[in-house]
């Protein structure tokens, strides 16, 4: 049973939008193990492998609902909503009262901007029992439809169930801010931020409300911290600049406004690419382009997610694999980067760029002979390759 609880926890806790559940089904231990491994792979955005593990679990599972549900989650993360819906439907066929299915179907409808349908799904989830996650999700969907009274009511119901439910406080803060009730918004955001001070999003909203309330001087420290940790966040730069200017620090403020302008241009590109992947969900190059843009601004985890979706769509695209390996390197994960380069060249040993990068990683980790071997592989195929020649010369000189 311990295994099962662990499994279920991991299934539900990847996303704050996903509901905790206690589906007490008996599952074959082997199937459990596969699902747990699959869940780990999903966390690393290794979608293809996660689905492969789900298939393995399927072979052994006597109760298939967990397997279907897990597949639903993988497809949801991939943005493949039709497949996700089918997987969730399969879950319900096996177990009509499976906790979380309607909630996750609601999330997918929400992501597709079908908010009315999302509301229907969330309400169905609530028939299985009152829970904070679908209550809050209902609130968010009503916000999108402009029905703010209903939204407020559901956020408040979620808080009634759990008065430390920060996400609901956060949403209430946003709702009140949009309604022009800035003091109320500050109160709610302060509550969310107070409970979860490490949450930068809460910290940001709290700080921007201070700026709007002409209390910018109180927000400057927080905003500077956010800019440090999220250098890609244009709102933080912008509000910091505004707060500084309005408190008499014109030069510093203008510097941050200029930075905000640069960050904004990059964000505009990302926004456009996100729209493109929504319109072209089967196009690996759209995802790869989005990943590249995200990587460029330092959003490595989001970039990895996009690259992995691209790879799911085109498993044999070695350019994308190479970018994934490079990204591991940027994230400081040399081991996985090397493993990925090795994986690529086992599939296609003629890729000189990969050999080149692999050599660089070996050299940086002081594995000189391996680096030399990698670059010599290039010269064997391309004797005049200037980069490989240069790197080997450099290696010899050191």
């Amino acid at each position, binding site marked *: 049973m311990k295994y099962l609880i662990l499994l279920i926890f991991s299934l539900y806790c990847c996303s704050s939008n996903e509901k905790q559940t206690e589906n007490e089904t008996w599952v074959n231990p082997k199937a459990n193990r596969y699902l747990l491994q699959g869940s780990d792979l999903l966390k690393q955005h290794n979608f293809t492998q996660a689905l492969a593990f789900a298939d393995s679990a399927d072979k052994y599972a006597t109760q298939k609902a967990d397997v279907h549900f897990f597949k639903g989650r993988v497809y949801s993360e991939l943005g493949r909503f039709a497949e996700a819906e089918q997987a969730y439907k399969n879950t319900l066929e096996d177990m009509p009262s499976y906790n979380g299915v309607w909630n996750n179907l609601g999330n997918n409808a929400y992501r597709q*901007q*079908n*908010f*009315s*349908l999302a509301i229907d799904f969330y309400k169905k989830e609530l028939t299985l029992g009152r829970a904070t996650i679908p209550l809050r999700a209902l609130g968010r969907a009503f916000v*999108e*439809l*402009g029905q*703010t009274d209903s939204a407020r009511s559901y956020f408040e119901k979620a808080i009634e169930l759990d008065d430390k439910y920060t996400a609901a406080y956060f949403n209430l803060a946003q709702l009140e*801010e*949009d*309604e*022009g009730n*800035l003091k109320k918004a500050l109160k709610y955001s302060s509550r969310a931020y107070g409970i979860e001070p490490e949450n930068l999003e809460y910290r940001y909203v709290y700080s*921007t409300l201070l*700026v*709007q309330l002409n209390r910018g001087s109180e927000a400057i420290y927080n905003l500077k911290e956010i800019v440090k940790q999220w250098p890609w966040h*244009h*709102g933080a*730069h*912008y*509000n910091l600049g*505004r707060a500084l*200017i*309005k408190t008499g620090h014109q030069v510093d403020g*203008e510097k941050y*406004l200029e930075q*905000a*302008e640069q960050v*904004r241009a990059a964000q*505009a590109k990302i*926004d*456009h690419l996100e729209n493109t992947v929504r*319109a*072209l*969900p*089967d196009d690996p190059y759209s995802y790869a382009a989005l990943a590249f843009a995200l990587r460029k601004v330092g959003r490595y985890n989001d970039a990895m997610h996009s690259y992995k979706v691209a790879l799911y769509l085109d498993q044999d695209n070695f350019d994308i694999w190479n970018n994934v390996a490079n990204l591991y390197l940027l994230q400081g994960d040399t081991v996985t980067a090397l493993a990925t380069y090795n994986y690529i060249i086992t599939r296609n040993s003629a890729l000189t760029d990969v050999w080149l990068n692999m050599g660089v990683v070996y050299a940086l980790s002081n594995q000189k002979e391996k680096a030399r071997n990698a670059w010599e592989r290039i010269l064997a195929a391309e004797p005049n390759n200037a980069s490989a020649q240069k790197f080997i010369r450099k290696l010899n000189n050191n």
Partner: protein
Amino acid sequence: MNLFNIGKIIIIGYVIFISCDKIKPVVSSTNQISFTEVTKYAGLSDFRHITGAAGDKWFPESMGSGGGFIDYNGDSWPDILLVSGGVWPEKNKSVIPALYLYRNNRDGTFMDVTASTGLADLHTYGFGITVADYDNDDDQDFFFTTIWQNHLFRNDGGSFVDVTAKSGLGKDSLWSTSAIFFDADLDGWADIYVGSYVDWSPENDIWCTLDGITKNYCTPELFNGVPSRFYHNNGNGTFTDQTEQAGFLPAPGKMLGAAELDFNNDGWPDLAVASDTQRDLLYVNNGNGTFDEIGAISGMAYDENGRAKAGMGIDVGVVDGSKKETIFVGNFSKEMISVFRHQSDVFFEDRSALSKIGRPSLMTLTFGLFLFDAELDGDLDLFTANGHVQIGIEQTQDGIYYREPSHLFLNDGSGHFTDIVPIIGGALSKTIVGRGAAYADYDKNGTVDILVTENGGPAHLYRNDNHLNNFLRINVKSINGTRDGLGTKLVGIINNMSMERRVKTGSSFMSHSETTVTFGLGNAEKLDSLYIYWPDGTKEIFHNINGGQEINIMEGQGRLAVQ
């Protein structure tokens, strides 16, 4: 509480101590607000805006065009000028007139005078109009923006002559949008700022989609913006491009609306510009007809999270007791209408949400937008014409519609607004693909009426049927400024409460409203005082002006002429 309700408190004091007060508090309930669509009766129902769409989903087809009011024959009755869009030479065999002019018959109806006024032979792909007496000869001329060459039409005794070539305004062939006449250097001649949008042509068109299968209209992020241009009026019928010298470069382009203001009260006209998916701009006049752009520092360029919105139509006015100007900008769906009130120095405060306009405007895409006193209670209300750009948006975005109702945000006098269209229903609640919007008192009954254009559809004339409150309408003629008094500020006082209005062109989206100023007097019989701040810096004061009339004031004459 509107200013007359505030007045009520003061009045009580007068009643006790003086007992001679005549001003009554206004009744301003939504019950008395009513607009009736009179398009058919007025004889405008044959007009159709043409997008030229032939299946290619070319970007300009989604934009629509404007229209507005012009008194072309000088009889003081507002006539109507509409832009009919256009067709693509390569795609459509038949051509259409670019403009339609309708003469006001003074009985609530209009007559098509396009041909007899010399406007029938122009064929192009048109967008916007702006009207002014650019040559100071006491009649209304107009400037017409298109996707190719723009046109300046000089009014010669009630018919129009295309003087584009001679004026020097036809040299560029860019996608132009809204334009505004204003006297940037206060030399008494109306200069013109011409908004430019993006670098689009059929040759560089891009395939955009909502569903991955069918082509749909693109949004401007995909195209390079083209900076707007500024032309100085040389006073001899010609203009000189001074875009760079006047400080309008560099600029991000993608401009869709411009409004004149004077937020720092230095008497020199400033300019607020709405930009689509780019930062909005605020040009502060340096006191010599050159400008510095301070939008970002001022706080009006972005929303509270530093995001550039899809700025469309724009207007500026004093909407509360602060006596500070507030900028209103229409934006895309899921973006609030921007509301920025001047605070102090160069700073503006974001009141989009605080004004209570933000949240109700989130679901609509606003193009045309203007401030006017809908119920004549003394404060400025906000009308917006709405309509989406993507046909079939309902299929991909729940809660968003291609055809949308208008908004009429009533001001409570303190800068807090309520959209009364869902409450009163009627003509304004009819869903349309709204684009241009303009106002005028076309039937000269003192209430301000509304003209709206649709993309690929008819124009709508909405008659304002609020007759409970009193009014005063004022036309100004300047001697030292432009003849039509552009930039003149009028402040009306009732019971120590002030109403500020400005004589201006531009504003809204590619449209032109009357330059006659309307003061809503509520139940008051007269305006206590009228302060006129002429563009040359002189001031005139008049007292005890009876309401219920339209008057003319000539600069420096010290007298009012009743029409």
